[in-house]
């Protein structure tokens, strides 16, 4: 009996080592962890390869030949789940097995449809109302019509988002993104993002003094109205910047930040709680919020020649707004 218990004890001790020994011998999971290269492919580069693939599949000589071929009034169905569509037609009913739709020139998409495929155009894309798309990529203009949704990615030279559009994915334009009315978004990136008809040309461009001081405060801090400060501010409490103040440095607050009307910051702004821009504010550097950022009317963010990043959990933008670079909301962003 004692021997039996002893044997059981020995087995119990060595049992966990059995899978260990097997793993040592077989090495099923011995490769180094994969380095995250963090290179997001630009989807506008992908179509070229796909187009060439089409050219080869069709036995053509060049991309021009493909364009000619695609003017046929019938969608070009191919193996490998590719579909080339002719220019200028409104087509309905993309088969489920099609992974990519490629248009040689501009296309219009119908209203009240849902397409899970990737739609690419060498020209422009105009979507119908209240439709759902996974990916839309146009070389020229992309217009997402009222109530439509682009789930994953939208890219083009210029993009227009009409009222009630929702873009939970990334919207990326080479030149500009124009917002017409209330829009929900996740990430917008362009040299110019605006919901006004005429962009403001920023006159006050400043280079920061590299040897500026750093002001540390363990409590709340208030910058009086119209005050000019040439320093970085690191505030453990709340930070209140009075109307018309000018900060030539970066600011960080562990609690909320409120910028009074007309206050400008020529460095970066980092807030661990909510950040409120009352209106007519200008931020030249990066803007990071750990919670919510609210932009009042007529706020300008970044410079056209040095685009910047605005990122927060939630973004709410009211009135006229102009940004240069990336505007990202980790949870949800809203233009009212």
């Amino acid at each position: 009996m004692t021997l039996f218990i002893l044997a059981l004890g020995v087995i119990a001790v060595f049992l966990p080592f059995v899978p260990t020994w097997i793993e040592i011998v077989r090495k099923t999971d011995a490769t180094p962890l994969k380095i995250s290269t963090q290179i997001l492919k630009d989807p506008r580069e992908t179509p070229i390869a796909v187009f060439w693939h089409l050219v080869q599949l069709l036995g053509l000589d060049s991309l021009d030949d493909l364009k000619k071929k695609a003017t046929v009034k019938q969608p070009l169905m191919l193996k490998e789940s590719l579909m080339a569509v002719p220019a200028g037609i409104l087509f309905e009913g993309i088969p489920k097995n099609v992974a990519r739709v490629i248009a040689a020139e501009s296309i219009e998409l119908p209203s009240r449809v849902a397409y899970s495929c990737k739609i690419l155009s060498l020209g422009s894309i105009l979507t119908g109302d209240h439709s759902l798309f996974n990916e839309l990529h146009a070389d020229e203009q992309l217009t997402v019509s009222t109530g439509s949704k682009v789930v994953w990615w939208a890219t083009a030279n210029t993009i227009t988002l009409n009222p009630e559009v929702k873009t939970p994915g990334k919207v990326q334009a080479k030149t500009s993104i124009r917002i017409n009315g209330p829009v929900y978004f996740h990430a917008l990136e362009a040299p110019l993002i605006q919901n006004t008809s005429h962009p403001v040309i920023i006159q006050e461009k400043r280079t920061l003094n590299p040897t500026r001081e750093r002001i540390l405060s363990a409590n709340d801090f208030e910058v009086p109205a119209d005050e000019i400060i040439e320093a970085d501010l690191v505030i453990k409490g709340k930070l209140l910047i009075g109307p018309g103040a000018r900060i030539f440095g970066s600011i960080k607050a562990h609690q909320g930040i409120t910028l009074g009307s007309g206050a400008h910051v020529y460095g970066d702004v980092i807030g661990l709680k909510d950040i409120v821009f009352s209106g007519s504010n200008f931020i030249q550097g990066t803007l990071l919020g750990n919670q919510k950022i609210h932009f009042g009317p007529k706020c300008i963010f970044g410079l056209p020649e040095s685009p910047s990043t605005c990122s927060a959990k939630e973004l709410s933008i009211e009135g006229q707004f102009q940004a240069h670079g990336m505007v990202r909301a980790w949870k949800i962003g809203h233009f009212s």
Partner: protein
Amino acid sequence: MLFGAFLNVLNIFLYILLSLLVVYFIRHFTFTLNRAFKSQELLYLGIENQKLPTVTILVPAHNEEKVIADALTALLKQDYPRALFKIIPLNDRSTDRTREIIDQFTAQHPDQIFPFHRTTGKPGKSAALKDISSSITSEIIIVFDADYIPAPKLLRNLVAPFVDPEVGAVMGRVVPLNTAKNVLTRILDLERSAGYQVDQQARMNMNLLPQYGGTVGGIRTSALHAVDGFDPSILAEDTDITVKMFLNGWSVVYQNSCECYEEVPENWEIRIKQISRWSRGHNQVLFKQFKVLLQHDQLRFMEKLDAMLLLCIYVMGPMTFIAWGIAQVVYYSGNTESSLLASNLIAFLAFSCLGNFALFFEIGTAAFLDGYRKRIRLLPLGVMFFFVSLTTVTKVLFKQIWEDTILKKELVWDKTVRFRSETPKDGT
């Protein structure tokens, strides 16, 4: 009567040590829960457009002929404007082909690589960094050990948090490259995974004190000068910088997405030397900064506590041994129940939560988060690993007390031997 009083003192001491281990257990268990169930800190992620700062990359090297070419090649491939960064290989009196290889690279990239060949002064990484750092004028200093291979986007991601004027240093994640080599490298891979994916990231999420690790890390030059730079008398210059930054109102940020490959020791002798150097350096910082940290009035209680627990981590090994000893004395004195309980608790708590050597729950969670779950099967080998680490750090502490306090011996930098290839590579 006297013996009874002595036993009471031992008992009190035993329960103090036990309480400390419980505190460590709670700390690491909280970190694990944080990583398992809470979302990652996103503040500094996704900064895709920013005004990029000027950067100087320092590559300390002493007899690194097997690895230095790989490091320089990877650094030259960085996705960063050429005009904004330069590389300074810090050749500290190498006796192999390191100097020759660096000079070959310099000849090919004269606008990018500016070597610094040290032939005099105190040897060692801290001293070399101290020598060069006073002459650096760029906004940011990045330090890479010579055996590290950074991914092309690493530099850009590593400098991103410096938009925050409070950030003094940024630490990236170290990933072993030679994982498949043998059992030791595989366990070290698990240990690194837990240390970064769980420990460092949880401290970042909880707004505590992530540690600048001396490599795959950046330092704001103005912050470095403000804290009086690297201390050449300290072996763990990274821990020293972390604490000094913290005490002077600068924060340290950990960027889990900034991954960089390194080579881990492939035999136990080298591994033991590595732990010895780390623990000795870490203890130096503990003796130097503990009182200052305790008396600092600007820090939150939790920040102070985390910093103190971080500094004491290598002292907990010897404390565990002492606690076991006391438990034996108490047991043979007749108090069998409490000492048996204490003994078992010490064994369990020490094994489960001693910092760099954290096992089971931290490693398991890290493997889960990384998506490489089959390697968890190697966890039982942690017992062997735990005892090697425990005895090493204990030996180091007593040796350190003897040599530093009594004999006043000068510390010598003990370099980690490289294994990557037998044939040295050159700049071509």
